[in-house]
């Protein structure tokens, strides 16, 4: 098992190397360099030349890449062109916000997705099942930017039940430990911060998690239906096991396997969805950082963000693979 994990970690290296080359080449192919965008429609040709030289943009691209790589292996992505702070610092500020948002959205998606899926499978072709599946279809079909604005207008604007955007209430400061206000608030016993953070999270979490929740609900319904029709379930029922126990102990675990695969893949969706969700709800996360950095051609930050997102995605899939072995005793890694 440990050998397997070690091998997977080694495999991470070529993946990240490939991603870094793709991103580096990709962003340099986009017309307009950072110096030009910094100056906009102002500045002289001399200003432009000075900036390009200072930023090293007058060097050949392979030299620029080699320089970047030499820093990146030491965890130094360079200095942000836009803000002149270290790129890793910029990412460090944004990452916890996205982790908190994505984790909460994933939790929401799994809990409600499973609950709806299992419920629908237990009452197939009933009115409730049809209703739930129609709801799920709507959930899958709605794009994040539309869901977000809709929820914001209804629950933030019209009804006024929930706060409109931002991490916390205005003027609220908190002691940074993990950088996630909800977690920090709970750990430091600052309930006002925890409360505010949780309340501010509701709409973004629902927005981001809705499509994943719907996908999980559909998948868990169909696998659960299949498992509930298998012989061993019939045997369990024949033995007189109560239905609740048949579902929770005998059927659910076997039905979970494809769902777990799906959850792993949903993580990629959540990371990309975070870009829009964070923009709509004014959350200072990785998605927002990615957008502003791409628009400013802030090469070091873009590289860093993409590499870290790729690493998270690969590691999450490793976790999913390990979870298989836990859920299905027939699967063993060596």
């Amino acid at each position, binding site marked *: 098992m440990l050998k397997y994990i070690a091998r997977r970690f080694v495999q991470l290296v070529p993946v990240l190397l490939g991603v870094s080359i793709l991103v580096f080449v990709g962003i340099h192919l*986009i017309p307009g360099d950072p110096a030009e965008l910094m100056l906009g429609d102002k500045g002289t040709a001399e200003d432009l030349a000075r900036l390009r030289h200072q930023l090293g943009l007058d060097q050949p691209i392979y030299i620029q890449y080699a320089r970047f790589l030499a820093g990146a292996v030491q965890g130094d992505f360079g200095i942000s062109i836009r803000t002149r702070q270290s790129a890793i610092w910029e990412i460090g500020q944004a990452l916890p916000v996205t982790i908190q948002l994505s984790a909460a959205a994933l939790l929401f998606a799994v809990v409600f997705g499973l609950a709806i899926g299992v419920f629908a499978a237990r009452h197939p072709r009933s009115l409730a099942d049809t209703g739930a599946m129609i709801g799920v279809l709507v959930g899958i079909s709605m794009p994040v930017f539309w869901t977000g604005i809709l929820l914001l207008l209804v629950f933030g604007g019209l009804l006024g039940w929930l706060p409109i955007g931002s991490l916390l209430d*205005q003027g609220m400061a908190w002691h940074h430990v993990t950088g996630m206000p909800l977690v920090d608030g709970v750990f430091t016993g600052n309930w006002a911060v925890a409360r505010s953070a*949780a309340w501010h999270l*509701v709409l973004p979490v629902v927005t981001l998690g809705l499509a994943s929740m719907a996908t999980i609900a559909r998948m868990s319904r169909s696998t659960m239906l299949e498992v509930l029709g298998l012989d061993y379930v019939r045997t369990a029922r024949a033995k007189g096991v109560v239905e609740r126990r048949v579902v929770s102990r005998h059927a659910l675990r076997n039905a979970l396997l494809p769902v777990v695969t799906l959850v792993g893949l949903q993580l990629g969706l959540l990371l990309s969805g975070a870009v829009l969700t964070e923009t709509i709800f004014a959350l200072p996360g990785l998605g927002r950082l990615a957008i502003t950095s791409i628009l400013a051609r802030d090469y070091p930050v873009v590289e860093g963000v993409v590499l870290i997102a790729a690493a998270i995605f690969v590691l999450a899939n490793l976790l999913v693979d390990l979870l298989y072995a836990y859920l299905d005793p027939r699967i063993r890694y060596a």
Partner: protein
Amino acid sequence: MRHLIIRRLLPLMLAVAIVPVGLYSMGYAQAQTPKTLVIAIGADQTGLDPQTVENNESGFVMSTIFDSIVNYKPGSSDVGPGLAESWTISPDGKVYTFHIRHGVTFHDGTPMNARTVAQDVDRAINPSNPCYVLARKDVDTYDDFTFGTAKDGTVAKMDVLDDYTLRFTLPQPNAPFITSLAMIWQGIMSPAATKQYNCDAGQHPVGTGPFKFVEAVRNDHITLDANPAYWGGKPKVDRIIFQIVPESATRMLQLERNQAQILADVPPSDYSRVTGNKDLKLYTAPGLTILGVAMSNDLGPFKDVRVRQAMNYAVDKDAINKGLYGGATTASQGMPPVLWGYNKSVEPYPYDVAKAKQLLTEAGFASGFSTEMIVYANPRGYNPIGGAKLGEAVQGYLAKVGVNVKITQYEWGAYLDHYRHTPWEGFAISGWSGDNGDPDNFLGDLFEWDDVAGHQRTNDNSRHHDVAYDKLLVQGRQVTDQAKRADLYMQANKLLHDDAPWIFINHTNQVRATRANVTGFQLNPLQMFFHMEQVGLQ
């Protein structure tokens, strides 16, 4: 055992998921800090050291923290006292002597006087200063614009005459110098802070202004506390928070729900939503901008002034400005009416298809011609709807006089590259936001030919070249008397109108929205949040 874990996990997960609701019911509503003014802005600042940034968002925040040697008067681009109470200009227009205010300290306790001000300015003009801004990496600065550079021999010389007298000597008379000094980009930073943070106090700004920097959380907010000892009067609110909210719909909701009290920009589609709400107030003022469609003055049919004039007659600017720009002011010359030197007797070209056709016929293009137009998609401060929509509208009008335009759209970075560095022929969407509130910053930067160097100035992208016009611009920089300068610029504007280097489209309005209980708020043509000490909450 594992079954048990899963079984137990589900209710636990459900419980975690509903924690937010539970926490809320524990008494979420709590007293807000009194007198906090929240200003919602669309993007984060990129640094708060005035000499090292040029973007609006940084300027918004810095205008509450810093004073310049001279400041703009409230609601105006005219220059008034700042850290200098008064000043004199020598008759030859080269020597500026400033009398610095007594009894003012920086937010960190450093005394503000001629010496400390000079220490800060020194990094703008002195290449041997270890913090020399022009030698720093990644820096976007107006220092060369204001003070010139040592490298090309245009730099201003600075002398401290005594503790409260500071003198600048310019190599050439340069009348816009005084307005450039008032820009927020020349705000005076405590030299102690620059030293403490190793030349880069961009995340630890220390000024003399009405508000003191407290904290900046990346992409989230910037908090500033009132400076009760401000020389311009104690601020009327205790705290200002600049909240970064990228989505305009979200910003609008925050204003309606009183989560924000001021919106830094309002899209035209939301104007009626603000004016229709008695709790909100819309502020509108002519902006310090110009928007037009530049023509290649030295290439193609556009070499003929009659063709350029015909293009101006052929486009219904009023309709475009009403329909697409929420009622922007139609342009007739090279700068906005909010500036002195604007020539009121020059009217915009009327929409007159017959006249356009007649001029085209006279120029030998009776059956029209085909040409190209380059546009960009993204909105700009001087063009809130982006270049492509304007391009399409103009294309439609020009087709009616037989001019067929092929539009090519570029991404902004590529557009700049193409627009500024290639000899394009045809049309290009062009515009400008004023930097310092001086007419020269429009007429000189955008339309002047550098006769000494023998090429157009950097931003004269239409390659406009008129010797008489250029002479007036040079004179305008040499005279320091504002009335005399205004007269020169009025003449220049008349020439420019007749020479028609662009299709003059409009001057956009500066629009902001506040809650109705915000008092003392004034728009400044420079767009910055100047004089926020006068703003209160009822």
